[in-house]
């Protein structure tokens, strides 16, 4: 893991303390999204300070709060297109060409064993109650696996940082961290365009995903990916608001594919999600969960409407 400067560490510590302003927080969160080492550093500070919460007094919330939570977890984030039964907990396996595996044994058989680390112990809903320690160990293994997938995203760092710091791109193309400070109580930001570069490791992007926040549509432009014989690329939205990635459909073979499929998701979900492309049998995944390897992935950068003066 690369060593971080004192500035980086101080930033992480202050992030955990909570005293950074909104812009700095967003900046740290952007850095966390592109650099898993930094995310780990910040997370460690957040947990380190969180022991202080032991001292906070208990306050009972209203009963109604629970009703809303129950409704929120039951609701599959509006009504996405029916793709078959709700998949079980999805485990993101190892780095690089890693399969998105569902918990069902059928999907496990379909998943080619990666030449990297052994597949994670996947939990199933129909399992008997956990046997204490064994379950905890499996959980730990799962968490490690989950985190190693993010390493595939680390390589985004070079590209995204280049976008942030270099004038090669449009100067008004900035991550939300560097936007002009929002007005207090401003609830409706202007409709913005969002861009994600979907790529693998440090190779050139294979697809460029553009999201029109106003129209709730997205466009995928093929820039590098070679069409695969008898296979289709399928786009997924990966978010911690859902237990499993959501399909956004198969990417067509033409240069541009435009779809309205984001109207099912709220802006926060769309903004914060990771977009992943898996290689599926022709026509897309037959099961409703990704069966092929993730080949490209990326997160959105928000482009800023032309600023009044400085950026």
């Amino acid at each position, binding site marked *: 893991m690369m060593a971080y400067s004192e500035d980086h560490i*101080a930033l992480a510590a202050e992030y955990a303390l909570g005293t950074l302003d909104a812009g700095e927080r967003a900046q740290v969160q952007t850095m966390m999204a592109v650099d898993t080492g930094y995310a780990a550093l910040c997370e460690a500070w957040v947990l380190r300070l969180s022991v202080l*919460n032991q001292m906070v007094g208990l306050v009972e*919330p209203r009963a109604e709060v629970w009703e809303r939570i129950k409704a929120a977890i039951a609701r599959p984030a509006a009504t996405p297109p029916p793709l078959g039964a709700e998949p079980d907990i999805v485990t993101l396996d190892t780095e690089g060409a890693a399969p998105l595996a569902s918990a069902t044994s059928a999907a496990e058989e379909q998943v080619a064993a990666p030449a990297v680390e052994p597949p994670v112990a996947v939990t199933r809903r129909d399992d008997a109650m956990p046997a204490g320690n064994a379950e905890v160990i499996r959980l730990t293994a799962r968490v490690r696996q989950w985190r190693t997938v993010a390493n595939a995203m680390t390589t985004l760092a070079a590209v995204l940082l280049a976008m942030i710091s270099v004038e090669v791109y449009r100067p008004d193309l900035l991550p939300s961290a560097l936007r002009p400070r929002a007005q207090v109580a401003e609830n409706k930001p202007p409709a913005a365009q969002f861009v994600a570069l979907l790529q693998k490791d440090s190779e050139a992007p294979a697809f460029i995903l553009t999201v029109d926040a106003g129209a709730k549509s997205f466009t995928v432009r093929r820039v590098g990916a070679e069409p695969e014989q008898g296979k289709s690329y399928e786009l997924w939205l990966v978010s911690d608001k859902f237990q499993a990635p959501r399909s956004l459909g198969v990417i067509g073979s033409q240069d541009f594919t435009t779809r309205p499929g984001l109207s099912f998701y709220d802006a926060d979900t769309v903004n914060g999600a990771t977009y992943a492309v898996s290689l599926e049998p022709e026509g897309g995944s037959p099961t409703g969960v990704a069966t092929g390897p993730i080949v490209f992935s990326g997160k959105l950068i928000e482009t800023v409407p032309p600023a009044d003066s400085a950026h």
Partner: protein
Amino acid sequence: MLTPAELVWLIAAVSKGDEAAFERLYAATRAKLYGVVLRILRRQDLAEEVIQETYVKVWNSAGQFNPAVSSPITWMAAIARNRAIDVVRKRGESSIEEEPEAMDVAAETPDPLARREMSEELKRLLECVGRLEPDRQKLVLLAYYNGWSREQLATKFATPVNTVKTWLRRSMMEIRECLGLG
């Protein structure tokens, strides 16, 4: 009161979609998390919203909890607090005096726990905080418990914001050194 081991067990069950376990987890932890965010947000509607979002996130990411790294409550409170801070920073500044009186939340830091009730990690951290000058201790703890911004702290300590910024950074680095993190 559930033990950490029981909470770990519940989180494991939640990660497999066990709704009954999730309800028990909620029952066991809601008052702590609500207390944490209410101190920071000082409004019932905002606190409720953050609590809802927190538990949805817990439901969806229970599989990511690593019991080797932290206790369940530490993990859950961190999620809740982080979200509360996000909200309060985005909402922008209001002076401390303008905060609605409806929330009768103590403006100062919480009462100390008996030492025997504290985890080892908490004791170690408080020892390090305790080595700061008294004013800096207050600064750090007010920032943490009340979620105050640099501007609010500057008002409280009648100091320029930039000075507060320096104090905070130095204090955190001193805590870091005291904890032996290099």
